[in-house]
């Protein structure tokens, strides 16, 4: 496999550059792109920096742009990749080094939607009751792993990275608006009515196309808009 990987160390490099690696896949244990990157780190070039943790598609650490699409390296099968692979850090976020991006803006947008349940009142000694049907409304929303693939793929986020809440933030907002246990639905929807919130999404669907968990932020945003109209 021929890989070109964007390298950048702010201490040593004036600007980012692509570095080529040739990997004999017979030497690589495992069948995912992350296994190849680990092989490069261990055998070819120890200076390559990436983020990774679980290696199983649930921690959301290793989002990167592979042949033009944001993916998680740990769940990208080598069998699905062509012989030539080009890897960039996730676009639209400042590069810290190599494939590691600065996600602080992304986390701030997450925090801006008050991402925690705010029930009106709680039963004392037992759980809040929620029907199977109401709980099902959280499916497709709560599974987000905060990898950033969606927001990094969103043209509206590229244009206004500091202002637009982005698909991840809005998906999170939808998760709490949809929760029958939450008592602040109106406040939450109100909080989304600014210029750079719900209607900054242009329905491009990039977020949905790239989500490694198969979630649909565009649909969540549409649902939030309908909910806002219903209020």
């Amino acid at each position: 496999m021929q890989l070109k990987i964007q390298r950048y160390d702010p201490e040593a490099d004036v600007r980012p550059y692509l570095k080529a690696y040739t990997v004999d896949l017979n030497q690589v244990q495992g069948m995912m792109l992350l296994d190849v990157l680990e092989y490069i780190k261990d055998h070819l070039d120890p200076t390559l920096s990436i983020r990774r943790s679980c290696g199983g598609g649930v921690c959301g650490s290793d989002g990167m742009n592979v042949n033009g699409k944001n993916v998680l390296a740990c769940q990208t099968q080598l069998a699905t990749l062509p012989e030539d692979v080009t890897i960039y850090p996730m676009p639209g976020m400042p590069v810290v080094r190599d494939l590691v991006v600065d996600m602080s803006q992304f986390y701030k947008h997450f925090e801006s939607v008050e991402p925690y349940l705010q029930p009106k009142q709680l039963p004392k000694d037992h759980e809040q009751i929620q029907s199977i049907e109401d709980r099902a409304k959280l499916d497709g929303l709560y599974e987000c792993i905060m990898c950033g693939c969606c927001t990094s793929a969103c043209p509206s986020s590229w244009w206004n990275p500091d202002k637009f809440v982005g698909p991840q933030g809005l998906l999170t907002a939808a998760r709490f608006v949809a929760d029958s246990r939450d008592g602040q639905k109106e406040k939450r929807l109100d909080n989304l009515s600014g210029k750079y919130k719900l209607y900054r999404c242009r329905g491009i669907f990039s977020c949905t196309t790239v989500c490694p968990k198969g979630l649909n932020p565009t649909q969540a945003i549409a649902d939030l808009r309908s909910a806002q109209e219903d209020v």
Partner: protein
Amino acid sequence: MTVSTQVFDAIVIGAGGAGMRASLALGVEGKRVAVISKVFPTRSHTVAAQGGINAALSNYDADDNWKYHFYDTVKGSDFLGDQHAIEYMCREAPRSIIELEHWGMPFSRDEKGKIYQRAFGGQSRFYGKEKVRRTCAVADRTGHALLHTLYQQNVAHNTQFYSEWFALELVKNKQGHFVGVTAINISDGSKCFFAAKQTILATGGAGRIYEQSTNAYICTGDGLGMAWRHNIGLQDMEMWQFHPTGLYGTGILISEGTRGEGGRLRNAQGDYYMSGYSKNADLACRDIVARSSVQEILAGRGCGPDKDHVHLDLTDLDEDTIRNKLPGITEIAQVYAGVDPRKEPLPVVPTVHYLMGGIPTTEYGQVIEHTPGGDKVIPGLYAVGECACVSVHGANRLGANSLLDLVVFGRAAGHHVAQLDETQPLVYDQDDIDQGFATYTQMMKRTSGIAHSVIRSKLQKIMQRDFGVYRNHSEMQSGLQALKQLKHDYDHSCYFADKSKVFNTNKIEALEVGNLLDVALSTAYASLYRTESRGAHSRMDYPERDDTNWCVHSVVYADESTVKRPVNVAPNEVKPVILEVRD
């Protein structure tokens, strides 16, 4: 490079379930707390837990009781668990789960709208008489839901996170009090001494000492290594749980929930073999199931061309259960094995999963040293979660008791620290801090030698070969000698090529290998020390449980000394469970 100092009321190292539950408890009490984590909190390995979290809520089966949960846990531990701690955990379980639900954890629901509970291994009611469904679940993503819920609550409480900071060494003052930790900022390489009167280790497991593991890359036993290097004795380090169903080839966890929902293990001949090994069949305890699968493989009944794994058959489960209760497993099977679990069995093999042993603590997380006169609390240091050994899991952890352990003891430690009367001043000098950077500085200067990845690879192969499901003296002894050579190599010539400051993962991994080595050595010492078979520790040369000599904790030290520590058999409210044979 200069070292800055930051002072807090308390420091939590690790932002998984235990660390973030502890930080919440401290935050609620108004304490100034720093949470130091080498990854962003939601990247912590708690996220990978799947099946659930145990609590006797009686939502599915009436008349479940925490006392039955207590009984099951003691028995599951093969009587190596401390009964007062198990009592505390099981009694606190229901309200701990209710609390998580109140914080927004999106539990699956039953027809009455209550928290959904599923069957798991080793669970019974009426003291072993009937099966019971006690495991509270969020589909098969319970760890993800729990970790994210705790992170959300920490956001709500403005917890101060130091994400992508790597803790190097604990700092102890001349009076023997722990006073904080040295750390480096991964993002820019800067150094800091985090000072506090209390430090809580919540650094998780160390499954990466093995070649095949369900654990994340980050599970490198950093807190265990830090404690070990301060000559704190580690307890029951021979007790490594092999999960019966790691996905063959990758090691990725396939939840015990699959068997709780009705899945069964099968050999190459198509026999559902577990019923031949235990009356609880596929829902026997994990150590029993893992051994049974290895027996099948050793007898030549394994699956595949190399007959080196077994099959997990979910094809009898109805479509609804797979879709609603096991969606994550379905995804994993498809992505990582190319298998549709509705149509074909999953290839699985016992895979190292969890460390029952660790840093010995009281039920409030205080780290203790065992002396001839009894247990002594080590001032200034706490440990919670997988790096701790309180000990509620003994020689074998019950499935879905680990997430419970995190929240119960994370909370207990946080509260205990918050209640301390801290009138004594925080005392340390420059020398104490410098010691905490000594190894790091030395390694930064070394420009040639053996790459850490070479040492790590050898270490993992040794552990996989010599400290597996079945063990015996001669293999372990040769494994130990090889580990000692590696330790020597690491101390004298391990180096990392990359000396840059910004997000240098080469450097971080080299430091992690030091921790892996310490954990591996302690595992080797303890495994050779315990001359019996109990729970997860199965010795071919000592195949029987030896209650006369070994119903005690093993404690091992970096200088290779060993000591036995009594198991607590004095719960407060309930009668102790008396020794019996497990089935």
